[in-house]
């Protein structure tokens, strides 16, 4: 009896140390890029370490019993009638109780740090509007810039004030950590501080219909200087309207293309036009959500060649613009769904 207990405890102890060492050492969640993610990752490591101690204890006794306490062939007698052991039962009730209350308290402290609103003016306020199936960002402190991309300066705490136009959505950037539902009829808030420059993606994480999977938006975390440049460019840029140059010569070729948007995708992935042609796009938006057609010099979508007006379907609209004179491969997309509705715009 004592020998069994001794062996199994040694084994459990070794397993517990090994497992919790692994969980404390490895980075469980990939790509931490905000202060909030750092707290979450830290907390999760502790939780997994504690869980592995309990797992090791239970599983050691379990496996040991399975190996050493099997019925021997021919032995039909019952085992010793141990009905219980009061202090052991008390221990495995009280110790978990203490652990979970401690974890609860610690979790509460971390939660408060994560969600507490900062002093006025210290946070970058952004209004977020979610609709099926698009995100729209509005910067009230910068003259109400409206964008379909979330541009954020590094190391600046952000406060999102989020509203939904139709059903429940949820704002989540995996690298930033916490998520928050966006509920029709109320404004929900989410705060975080990005700490790494880079490109991320907002993913809707509350099922909102057939387009839920693709309800994403780009997030760019940039340096403060780059952010200022972006703000100025946005303030200077006209709202999305045709920026076509008038046709210049009688010999200019012209081309008409039928483009359809359905189920949050274009029916064409490559559009080919002659250089310098006058292009007419008959755009048919079959979705009952907003789309447009826009051409950029390349997939970073920094320099627009043409940005069509956004239309909410089902609707048809005709866009006219002049293709670049220089042959090459350009980029087109829907500004509302920049991550998934994209294609190549080839000038020959």
């Amino acid at each position: 009896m004592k020998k069994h207990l001794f062996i199994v405890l040694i084994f459990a102890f070794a397993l517990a140390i090994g497992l919790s060492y692994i969980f404390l050492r490895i980075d469980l969640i990939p790509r931490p890029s905000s202060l909030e993610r750092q707290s979450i990752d830290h907390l999760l490591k502790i939780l997994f370490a504690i869980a592995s101690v309990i797992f090791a204890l239970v599983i050691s006794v379990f496996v040991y019993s399975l190996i050493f306490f099997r019925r021997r062939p021919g032995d039909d007698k019952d085992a010793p009638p141990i009905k219980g052991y009061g202090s052991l039962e008390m221990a495995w009730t009280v110790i978990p109780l203490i652990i979970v209350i401690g974890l609860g308290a610690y979790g509460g402290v971390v939660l408060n740090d994560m969600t507490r609103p900062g002093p006025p003016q210290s946070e970058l306020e952004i209004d977020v509007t979610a609709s099926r199936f698009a995100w729209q960002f509005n910067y009230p402190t910068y003259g109400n810039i409206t964008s379909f991309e979330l541009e954020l300066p590094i190391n600046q705490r952000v406060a999102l004030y989020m509203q939904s136009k139709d059903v429940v959505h949820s704002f989540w950037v995996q690298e930033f950590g916490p998520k928050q539902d966006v509920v029709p009829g109320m404004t929900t808030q989410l705060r975080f501080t990005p700490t790494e420059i880079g490109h991320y993606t907002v993913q809707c994480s509350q099922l909102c219909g057939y387009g839920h999977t693709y309800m994403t938006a780009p997030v760019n975390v940039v340096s403060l200087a780059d952010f200022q440049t972006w703000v100025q460019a946005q303030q200077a840029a006209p709202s999305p309207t045709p920026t076509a140059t008038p046709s210049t010569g009688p010999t200019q070729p012209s081309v008409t293309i039928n483009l359809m948007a359905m189920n949050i995708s274009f029916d064409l992935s490559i559009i080919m036009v002659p250089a310098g042609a006058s292009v007419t796009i008959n755009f048919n938006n079959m979705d009952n959500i907003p789309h447009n057609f826009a051409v950029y010099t390349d997939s970073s979508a920094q320099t627009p060649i043409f940005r069509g007006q956004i239309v909410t379907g089902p609707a048809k609209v005709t866009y006219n613009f002049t293709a670049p004179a220089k042959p090459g491969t350009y980029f087109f997309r829907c500004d509302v769904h920049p991550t998934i509705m994209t294609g190549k715009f080839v000038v020959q």
Partner: protein
Amino acid sequence: MNKILKIFSLGVIRGLLAGLAGAGAGIGITMLVRHAIGLPAWNPGPVTTIGIFTGVITYLVVLGAFNYWFRWAIGAEPKEAEPPKRSWTRYFNLDTNHKIIGVQYLVTALTFLPFAVALQLVGRLDLSKLVSPLNATTYESIISDHGLLMLFIVVLPAFSGLMNYLIPLLIGARDMAFPRLNALSYWLIPPAGLLTAFSLLVGGFDTGWTLYPPLSASFEYIGMNFILIGIFLSGLSSILGAINFLTTIFKMRAPGMGPFRMPVFVWSTLATTALTLTFTQFIGMSFLMVLFQRVLGMGFFNPQMGGQVLLYQYLFWFYSHPAVYVFVLLGLGIISDTIPVFARKPLFGYKAVAISSIGIAAGGTIVFAHHMFAAGIPAFLKIPFMVTTLLVAVPTGVKVFAWVATMWLGKLRITTAFLFVLSAIVTFLIGGLTGVPLGIVPVDLYLHDTYFVVGHFHATLFGGFLLPLMAAIYFWFPKVSGRMLSEKMGKMQWLLMTVGTTLLILPMLGLGIEGMRRRVFDYSLTLGFRPLHIATAVGGFLIFAGLVILAYNMITSARRGAPAGPNPWNSMILAWQVSSPPPEENFAEIPRVVGNPFGYGVEGSVHAIMSTETKEEIKNE
């Protein structure tokens, strides 16, 4: 010709055909009335909803579910039931014997189980990107229907079946307290199941099993109406069942069957049915409200009409959190009752294990808001609900520790039933431990709505439902049929299902930690999720293969299996002291209970005295 006509003598065929006719009549009359008052005759929402209700009522009436009460209401002498014959047709007619109803429940659940699993296998193939992708609506409908079918048409009826069959046998009663109510609550399940399954054919519904409005309220397909009514019927069935079980346990125990002489399964039933009776009406109400918003335009959850979107989520989780304890408590009861038989030792800390069922149930009633940490509930609510959530870990831990301590120093007999119990313990342990991070709010805000939740939920349900159900089938099949299931096939099934469970659950947890959202049908290959999705799909197929073996084993063993005898496992529990299968009224004489049911190894220990001839009291201690 006569043989073909004979099929109509089966209540289930008559009932279903009459149900279809009733639905047609309901639809016809509604369209006539709509036409008469100048509305367009066809409007799928209201017309089909009325059709479904008339169909279900006609089906129940033709089946004879209300015959007794009708006669009683008009003052006629209630017809005496004919002495029942042992015949397979009893299983297809309205019957009030608890053992018949138990088998009906179980067979219904086991019929829908492979269908519900197969639905998800299609989704798994899609996610593993091995076949051409489904379209989004099909994928979301499939996974939503998988969830609802599993929970309301498989888990609840399967456990209702076990409770029905076992409770009277375990407490020494001849039948349930309200046999006619019992029959009614079973016969609500087939229409519920058919409506839930056929919702896919009338357009599906892409809302997830939680059916959150405004999405569920604005979605145009009529599959949604099928679901709402189907699940409502299943809920009604569990409420009626709960009344019955509670009354039976409180009022019909054999003399001497004190609370601490009941098997743990009876304690679990008590806890489960108390939860069911208290909370099921909340999901019934919330589903009806969504239905009314869809069909009648009432703006319960529409902010523009003064409604509240979060109201639904509160109502839904008010039931659906306690419901997950309904889904697992009985499984834990099965585990607790099975280990002592195969370890040949008393259950370690029996009283604590028994009471912990009540503790889990009581704790489970005050944790529901933890599903809404990210939903926009007031911040001050999050911390109390986090603490209550974590507290549920304590009674759950008591159970797990007690199981392992029961195995310690035992003389373990490795049968298939016991193997399934072992897998269930480990799986449930993983489910329990992964529940703690989900209870801690900051971590939950990351893990919420990722595959981690899916993995945790499947771990608890595999450990608390599927694997214990398999153990129960292997343990109780000899009692029900009088024949043993094949152990060889059983062990093969166990191996497939254990490997399958592992492959299913661990990759899901990993996917969640890496940030895979749930309920999406596509993902970028650059994220490295694909190998884990393939592993999950393989796990799903192994589990399905296990179910196929089980079906084959049950069918062949029911005819050719080795005769079981009354007590093949050498168990002390009352049910095993009568013949297999048990007599029509279980006990010729109501037994007298004199000790607890786990006295293995105790000199001269006896649970119950079966016949009056042995008058002398035998001490258990």
